[in-house]
């Protein structure tokens, strides 16, 4: 089976929300920076005053590759590994589902992949 996350006290709200079909980002109430992935401190000003905000789910492909040789047999190939730049600014790693090549700059939208007891935020091309 593909790897699943191991939630911590910091990341549990993120994974709980994903199960409900929401992608959470952290916004720093001190400096306003918006961050993905979740962490205990704001990486811009080191404040611990972070609040959860919902991402719009819109983004663009910052870089992508079609993988033909997987890290383990759990990953059927081909799949697209991408870095998506979210509308809110942060970048995150995800798959662009479907496996077809995607161009840099392509518009993508949020979707979710069920994996065991988890839902993984993923993306698909906007038609």
């Amino acid at each position, binding site marked *: 089976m593909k790897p699943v996350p191991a939630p911590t006290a910091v990341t549990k709200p993120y994974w709980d929300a994903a199960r409900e079909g929401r992608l959470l980002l952290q916004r720093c109430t001190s400096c306003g920076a918006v961050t993905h992935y979740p962490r205990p401190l704001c990486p811009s000003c080191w404040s611990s005053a972070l609040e959860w905000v919902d991402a719009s789910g819109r983004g663009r492909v910052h870089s992508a590759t079609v993988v033909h*040789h997987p*890290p383990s047999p759990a990953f059927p190939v081909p799949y697209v590994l991408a870095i998506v730049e979210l509308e809110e600014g942060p970048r995150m790693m995800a798959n662009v589902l479907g496996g077809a090549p995607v161009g840099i700059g392509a518009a993508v939208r949020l979707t979710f992949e069920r*994996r065991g007891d988890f839902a993984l935020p993923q993306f698909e091309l906007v038609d």
Partner: protein
Amino acid sequence: MDGSPAIAGVLELAPGRYPDLGALEMQELVLARALASWGLRPSEVDGLLVSPAGMASGASVDVFAHDALVDAFRMKPRFAETVNAGGATYGIMAARAAIAIATRQADVVVCLGAGRFPPVNAGGGDAMARIVSHVDFEVPYGAFIPALYALVAARHMHERGTTREALASVAVTSRAWALEHPDALMRKKGPLRVEDVLASRPIAEPFRLLDCSVPCEGGGAFVVARGDVARRLSPAPAYVLGFGEHHGGRVSQAHDLATMDAGVSAARAFEMARLRASDVRVAELYDAFTITPILLAEELGLAARGAGGALFTEGRAAPGGDLPINTYGGLLSFGHTGDASGLSMIVEGARQVMGAAGSRQVADASVALVHVYGGIMADHCTLLLGSST
């Protein structure tokens, strides 16, 4: 630099497989062979820097490798530690050794490592990916070493116009150099053509199999000594003229995928050495995949941005070219020894400056630039070595 620290000796095992040796035993073998070849007794070594034993294999890791070696050789170093910054480790060791000599903490510092890199399909690839990727926010998406570098390559091609053929030319160039190195793993395979690279099986686009370095096992060591000691050990030591470091983070959070901030450490090294990129006669650039020598050449100032690929497509980096790069065959054709990979470039850079590179010797190798990095281009170290202080 105070004390004129210089690399006075190098040793590298032939890359391959060492199935009968544990990770620590490989380090002991390296140290024994190195001291014997340099004519040094363990008691003369007053600084010891070693990489963790067993890291890239995903097996248990010994982060007290320095104590194990001190024990095994009954050494009495004035300073010793186990150092890790992935592939950048050995550049950082050279810098630490030079600082120790300049500040009179030590006169003779041995830097060494040995690595195991299990075949990718035997779990080696997955183990390496887990070391350098975020276990919850990158690994579940199938983050895999070739794929992570492919994200860098795709961005470089997009922003700089780097071509698929330029990537292939890096592999071709490295193979040409490997044919001149008796120990290079891919020497027996003979020369490579661009079309061979393009016809090899796809791994993670744009990479094909021959764009990827070759996992193996190996190790080596070098000794950095105070100038007068170095000149006793070697007729032509490679002086450490400058170094610089820079440390970044994970690929998904990289500030700029097309640069990976590789130029920062080089600027520091050039400033320290009072040298410019145009002074560099030979360059050894860490090449886990074919994109990295192109990206590094541009960021280090050896080529203009967008012109890194031409160093390889036009033969300038190849044997006979005016800016030889990865003259030992690179990780692409010499072999990638896992934990010890970053040693290979330093060993070769020093050999070139010392005039000891055999049939691959570059004429007038007065200044060598070595750039090593760890993680997925997260930890950077640039080293400038020269034949005079």
